[in-house]
């Protein structure tokens, strides 16, 4: 402690040079780096979730003699993957990842009593929320995007290459993979925004998550108008291979791909904006939390 006072008691430094957009990008980048470093150091739960479809597809490869009936029939692999993707990855894993990651983006900081460090920084709180949300999207899409690709490839591994090759490179294979990746991305974006916003209205994300899980699970039973109030309705419509919903399903027209994509993106923007409005009014009182 040997320097003179003047070195610290100098006039407050001006804002870093550059247009606000540039500064905001720099600040958002700093928040994302910091969140990745401290928030996702050991994402064991997420890794296990993402690894589950890979494990199932691998088991099918190992036991292909029993699990695969016709090696030359690529459609069998396509059906297997469609079921696994829609039931396991989309309806369960991406939903749970949304709860775990986005529902805790702010809550974890409150429980760790570290949110005030952000609140005491000269950053717009709306920008803080947006940066944290983008971190969540980056993490979940990276993990589940990789999981989607690997499990997709493994779904066709037990089949003859002579049948798989034309399907992948001259048929609909890669396009289907692209569609699955798009759905994975939009699920991260959509569920992420929903659980980010719910995190501001509920102390624990578990209660709204359970309610929403029930709603999303029975969406096929809902009348057409109510179906439109579920995220899965739009995501499912983008899946390249439909799966039957059972005899009790209420039939309705699937929304067009453009409506689904734009609708989910708009929903995400609105919910992130609502979260920004909430955090602007948020107080820090860890003891009450």
């Amino acid at each position, binding site marked *: *402690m*040997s*320097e*003179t*006072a*003047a*070195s*610290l*008691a*100098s*006039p*407050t*430094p001006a*804002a*870093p040079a550059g247009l606000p957009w540039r*500064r905001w990008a*720099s*600040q958002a*980048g*700093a*928040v994302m*780096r*910091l969140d990745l*470093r*401290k928030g996702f*150091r050991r994402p064991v739960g997420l890794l296990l979730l993402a690894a589950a479809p890979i494990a199932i597809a691998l088991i099918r490869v190992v036991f292909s003699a029993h699990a695969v009936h016709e090696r030359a029939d690529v459609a069998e692999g396509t059906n297997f993957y469609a079921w696994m993707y829609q039931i396991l990855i989309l309806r369960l894993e991406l939903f749970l990842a949304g709860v775990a990651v986005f529902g805790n983006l702010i809550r974890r900081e409150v429980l*760790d*009593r*570290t949110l*005030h*460090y*952000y*609140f*005491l*920084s*000269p*950053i*717009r*709180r709306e920008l803080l929320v947006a940066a944290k949300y983008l971190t969540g999207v980056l993490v979940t899409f990276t993990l589940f995007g990789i999981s989607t690709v690997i499990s997709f490839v493994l779904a066709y591994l037990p089949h003859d290459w002579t049948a798989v090759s034309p399907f992948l490179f001259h048929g609909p294979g890669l396009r289907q993979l692209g569609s699955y990746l798009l759905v994975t991305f939009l699920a991260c974006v959509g569920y992420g925004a929903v659980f980010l916003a719910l995190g501001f209205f509920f102390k624990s994300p578990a209660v709204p998550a359970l309610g929403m899980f029930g709603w999303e699970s029975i969406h096929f039973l809902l009348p057409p108008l109510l179906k439109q109030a579920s995220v899965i309705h739009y995501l499912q419509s983008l899946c390249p291979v439909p799966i039957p919903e059972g005899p009790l399903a209420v039939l309705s027209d699937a929304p067009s791909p453009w409506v689904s994509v734009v609708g989910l993106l708009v929903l995400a923007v609105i919910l992130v904006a609502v979260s920004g409005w909430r955090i*602007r*009014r948020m*107080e*820090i*009182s*860890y003891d*009450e939390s």
Partner: protein
Amino acid sequence: MSATVTEKQRVIFENVSKFYGEVLGVNRVSLSIPPGITGLVGPNGSGKTTLMNLMVGLLRPSRGRISVLGMDSQRPEEFFRHVGYSTQYDAFPPGLNGSQFIRSYLRVHGFGAAEAEAMTWKALERVGLTEAAGRKVAGYSKGMRQRVKLAQAICHQPSVLVLDEPLNGLDPMARAEVISLFRELADGGLHVIVSSHILHEVDLISDQVVLIHGGYVVAEGDIANVRDEMEEEHPAQVSIRCDRPALLASRVFAQDSVMEARIDDDGKGVLVRTRDADRFHLLLNQVVLENGLTIEAVAPADADVNAVYQYLIGSNGEKS
């Protein structure tokens, strides 16, 4: 909002109240805090932290208005370029070492990598923590955690520094160094606002004090002035150490302004209670000269913040 010149130089609370539901945090607080070191004093639970959290916008007032150098904390992007706050929360982002902790949040401020790096080491040097900068904060001692929080609060060179119980957990050497740092910063024109429930600690470092109790500000200003205003109700006490205390006691007690003159237990001094300290000091000079007394020390016995607090509140302000 157009702030007046005074507002731009002061931290101002205008009739501020904060309620947590029906529980009182602080009530009808009006303050105008000038540059220098301001001690915020009160027992645990008196409202010091609430007042500080209101100051920096971590809490919103239920009523009233707060202005820090003419700025409103609801615009954090501007406000926190000028304000640093070391909270009482003993918590840190997991997995970071000392320098990463400071540097990461400087990047959030918007500083570039090189600039943030230089500012980080400067702040760590100020608090004497460069050697431990590479260690995980989670492994720091209480004193080191206090210092790294202090470094984080000063690293961006704020004009207003708000510190909640900053001396807690520091060893005597570190306390002396940190107090010296506060003094340097205040001498450089900063507002340094320090809370403590240890009264003598605040007495040592503050230019002015704000005494708070039960959510109310009970006194504010220079501690000597606050004490003077209480002279009618609580006569001043002066301790005189001299060679002939009995003689001194008999001479001064004969005067109207002296209410009591009591010889110390060790027989080497006198404790005088007087309603007019100025007049008493003139009288003392006269008695000393007339009787050739040898004076070792003359000191006010109850002009410190501890005594003032005791008179105002009826307790010594320590944690009960």
